């Protein structure tokens, strides 16, 4: 297979998801280039989360293909997709609440394909290699926590962290899997303006620090417009626009989807009057 010039690390080709008579996502094409910060927006019920669920293997697409690092991932289970380099966070934070912050990271490091894993017998006998690997993982977990400024809370139960820290820990946990494509599902949900601003910094920082590719679903337009380099807009399961934040803000179809037809026409009117 020849690699197309514009091929991305993550691609959706004619991706369709049908629930009974409802086409939640229809013929979606997305190309997400390496190290991009890509936004997926749309009104409620537009199919954004369905797209995420297909990309992460929770749903199996009705038709179409998902290419992850030029490998078709259709039909793989979520954990297999994560091990192939795509991890996610959740809209309503899903940490391992009763485990420590460190253990949350260790669970991900255990799955990291770059790390050596041991069989049951070796683990029960706790061989020297196992002990070494555990010590290495703990050191690495602390490194990752330092990056996310969570190292001083390593031994606390995840449930006791403030909400903003929990969101950061969730991203740290996704990074620890070794995945470098991160899908963030409404990362700013429940954060105040101050925390959202900090989150924007974090998103840019992890892209640069870990050379990660970031795809996010978000309703907070300030975050989307401020941090995303490219945005795709879904409405009723169909991609109605894609482009830079500036292009998206001006696109009449997007305005129509969000605010209704009248609003988009009045904006058109405004635009045309400007031309006079």
């Amino acid at each position, binding site marked *: 297979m020849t690699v197309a010039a514009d091929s991305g690390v993550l691609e959706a080709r004619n991706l369709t998801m049908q629930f009974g008579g409802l086409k939640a996502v229809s013929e979606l094409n997305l190309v997400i280039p390496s190290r991009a910060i890509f936004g997926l927006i749309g009104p409620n019920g537009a199919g954004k989360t369905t797209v995420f669920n297909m990309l*992460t293997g929770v749903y199996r697409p009705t038709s179409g293909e998902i290419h992850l690092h030029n490998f078709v991932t259709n039909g793989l*289970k*979520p*954990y297999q997709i*994560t*091990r192939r380099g795509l*991890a*996610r966070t*959740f809209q309503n934070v*899903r*940490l*391992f*609440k*009763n*485990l*420590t912050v*460190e*253990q949350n990271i*260790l*669970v*991900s490091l*255990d*799955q*990291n394909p770059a790390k050596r*894993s*041991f069989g*049951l017998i070796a*683990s*029960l*006998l*706790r*061989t*020297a*290699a*196992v*002990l*070494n690997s*555990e*010590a*290495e*993982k*703990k*050191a*690495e977990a602390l490194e990752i926590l330092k990056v996310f400024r969570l190292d001083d809370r390593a*031994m606390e139960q995840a449930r006791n962290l403030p909400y903003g820290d929990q969101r950061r820990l969730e991203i740290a*946990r*996704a990074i620890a*899997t070794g995945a470098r494509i991160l899908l963030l599902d409404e990362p700013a949900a429940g954060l105040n303006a101050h925390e959202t601003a900090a989150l924007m910094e974090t998103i840019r920082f992890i892209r640069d620090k870990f050379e990660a590719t970031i795809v996010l679903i978000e309703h907070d337009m300030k975050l989307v417009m401020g941090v995303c380099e490219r945005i795709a807009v879904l409405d009723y399961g169909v991609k109605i626009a894609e482009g830079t934040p500036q292009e998206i803000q001006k696109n009449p179809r997007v305005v129509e989807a969000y605010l209704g037809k009248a609003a988009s026409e009045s904006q058109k009117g405004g635009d045309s009057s400007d031309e006079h």
Partner: protein
Amino acid sequence: MESVRTQAEAANRKMQPWMRSAGQTLMWGVMLAMAFAIGPVVEQWINPYWFTIVILCGINIILAVSLNLVNGFTGQFSIGHAGFMAVGAYTAALVTMGLGDNVSWVSFVAASGFPPEAVFPIGLALGGVAAAAAGYLVGMPSLRLRGDYLAIVTLGFGEIIRVVFMNMEAVGGASGLNNIPFFTNFGWVYSVVVLTVFCVWRMVHSAHGRNLLAVREDEIAGEAMGVNTTQAKVRAFAMGAFFAGIAGGLYAHYLRILTPQTFDFNKSFEIVIMVVLGGMGSISGSVLAAMLLTVMREALRVIQTWYDVDLRMIIYSLVLIVLMLTRPNGLFGTREILDILPSSWRRKLAGGGTKQ
């Protein structure tokens, strides 16, 4: 990779990793050997009545700790543990009886100079393997189920096992299996107790164990972080069943008679109660609760002799209710008895690990 390794080595400068590894495992080995060493002393020292309680304590510890792996650490509420115990008990009994009574086996064992007891560990191991296979079979289809639904399936499985044995003439049907050789002694029971605690403790404090904890905490998040949740659950089920099977084998060779009624759902609930009372996710909690409940049931017999009414089960139930009201997370919660030790000691014992 190389630099990370030297870093880790620098951290463990005081002792070579292989020495720490061997030392810690040796410690468990010594405990296992001690069970055999003090066995004859214990058997001479205490009277037969209390000896039976001591043996039952050990068997219940094995059952409770192994069930805790499934219920407490993996969060899969299984109430069919007696079923796995039954599979192990019948398998082990058939192995030792078949091999012991069979002429060729007797002559073989005699000719090779082994005592007849030599078939016992083989029987126990095969009983464990058969139970683990049963655990695997139950684990696979019931993985899609959660909470109450899984509980019902495991309960149903336990009953199916019992009814199957009840209707199998080859194992004596409802009247049971008699004349099982008497092999179980203090040494065997408590060496298996040590082995069970060792395996479950190490399992839980390993990368494999973290997968189980991830499944318990949030299966969907675990799967999204790359945890093979199906594999984790099947492993927990199979390993829990393995030790339940061995416990069944020990039980069979102590009582010398097996009836299917022994393994009804009351037995399953008894084990669940031990796990819940001790604390779901606490190995030491399971150990203590198993001992406490086993002793309490017998101690309450005394009350029965004072009055003519059987108050035993009423008091037993009341104690459980009061304990659950005052300590809803069980006696230990998710803590271990080692947590009361200073943290420096704990680190050494847990192998340089942190509080789990």
